[in-house]
């Protein structure tokens, strides 16, 4: 066996790697990554989240573990566990900063070096899914992440967009990025799709509607679902709570659960 191989690396125990991408910022990548992880956990899977957004790491806060620190072990860094039962493990630059407010103002090469370390030096152990949450755009972080993950054959990428035209335009570019880098697109999620007034139940399409679904049809990739604007979802992410377990009746729940189910169906042993 060669000195380094995918079989012996820290990712050897990870069954499926999937990336959450978007050309546009603020569409809900971290939100979708978090909720997907929580839903997969309810289905009995062991999940890890790798947050490669070095400038704006949101993941630690969404699990209320922003004060945690990272420890070393023989095989490298130990990920931070979000719950007692160690069902969700996290790694983010947020854990490595001295103060949570510290700004990471780095140029490309330094970011690339850290991302390579995140991929190869974190002792993930046995995981069913590793979800990689990315920053917006198609820059250093994305190139480095895809290159570093290539030997581990990622399952594919979920693209998140909001329905409006400026977002869809950026995500169209991201689709081309995936094609160029040979990354399979598992599907498109249309987030912030409509808002139902809690008072009168009138639905207003604040950020428009249907843009993501149309893009999926046009590009020939699966459409995974539309997630509506849900103040309970925003609040639960602010507080670091488990939206999937605590708010199953909330308006965003059915869409999020459906997305998780499609991922599970796509990776069950029956399908090839």
């Amino acid at each position, binding site marked *: 066996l060669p000195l380094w191989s995918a079989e012996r690396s820290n990712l050897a125990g990870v069954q499926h790697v999937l990336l959450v991408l978007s050309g546009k910022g603020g569409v809900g990548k971290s939100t979708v990554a978090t909720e997907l992880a929580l839903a997969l956990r309810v289905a009995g899977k062991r999940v890890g989240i790798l947050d490669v957004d070095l400038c704006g790491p949101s993941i630690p806060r969404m699990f209320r573990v922003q004060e945690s620190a990272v420890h070393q072990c023989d095989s490298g860094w130990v990920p931070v566990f979000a719950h007692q039962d160690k069902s969700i493990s996290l790694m983010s630059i947020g854990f490595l900063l001295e103060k949570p407010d510290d700004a990471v103002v780095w140029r490309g090469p330094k970011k690339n070096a850290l991302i390579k370390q995140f991929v190869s030096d974190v002792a993930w152990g046995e995981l069913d899914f590793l979800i990689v949450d990315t920053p917006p755009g198609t820059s250093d972080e994305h190139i480095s992440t895809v290159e570093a993950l290539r030997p581990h054959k990622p399952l594919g990428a979920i693209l998140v967009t909001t329905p409006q035209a400026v977002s869809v335009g950026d995500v169209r570019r991201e689709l081309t990025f995936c094609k160029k880098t040979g990354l399979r697109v598992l599907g498109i999620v249309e987030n912030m799709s409509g808002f139902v007034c809690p008072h*009168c139940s009138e639905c207003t399409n*604040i950020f428009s509607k249907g843009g993501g679904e149309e893009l999926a049809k046009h590009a020939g990739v699966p459409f995974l679902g539309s997630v509506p604007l849900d103040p309970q979802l925003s609040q639960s992410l602010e507080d670091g709570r488990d939206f999937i377990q605590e708010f199953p009746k909330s308006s965003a729940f059915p869409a999020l659960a459906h997305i998780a189910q499609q991922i599970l169906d796509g990776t069950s042993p029956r399908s090839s």
Partner: protein
Amino acid sequence: SSSSRDEVLRDKRAQIMSRGLPKQKPIEGVKQVLVLASGKGGVGKSTAAVNIALALAANDSTKEVGLLDADIYGPSIPKMMNLKGNPELTPKNLMRPLKNYGIACMSMGFLIEETAPVVWRGLMVMSAVEKLLRQVDWGQLDYLVIDMPPGTGDVQLSVSQNVPIAGAVIISTPQDIALLDARKGAEMFRKVHVPVLGLVQNMSVFQCPKCKHETHIFGADGVRDLAKSLELDILGDIPLHVNIRETSDSGQPVVISQPQSDA
């Protein structure tokens, strides 16, 4: 003595360092540069940049305003200003900015196809930003509004180090997640000695058009608390309104098309 030797060493190190750092050079013809940043993506920088540029021009018709879209990876300005096409070149080989509603605009979006991603590493991005700043025939501008990309990386550093900036405005939505990043954005400007003029709270509240019930979808007043803790002013509070998105999508910014609306 050892302390004077230390001092000599320190001075020598400072001298060597300052030789390597890029020098700030103002852009020809541009009086004041205003930067719109946030740290977080999707909070409304481009929307605000477009409407602020237009409002500056509308407030004082004698002022010339330019708009630079420094978001290389996700340029939104062309769509919002309803502009398309490759810029022409002047005899001096400078790019001519595209104009609409009286604002001169330049963006990466004019130089690439709509579906083409810009998959570049930092160094190429820096040189692209340099070109968008200096290889453009801006003419005589009173204000140049620069719409920054999300994050605190290469582009923000390049712009702050190369161009003297009159002031930066930081935009955020009320959520904690966005405020965390806004705080980092403010700290970044502090590190590179750019004055922060204040914060803008966007997407603060949504009023149901049917029953007028107000919902704080993304939380409430988070930006006010951050402004207080950073000792900055709140420059504005923008509500969520369907009109803003509708007019942005169709390329008719709300300041121009619906000046009497709440936004």
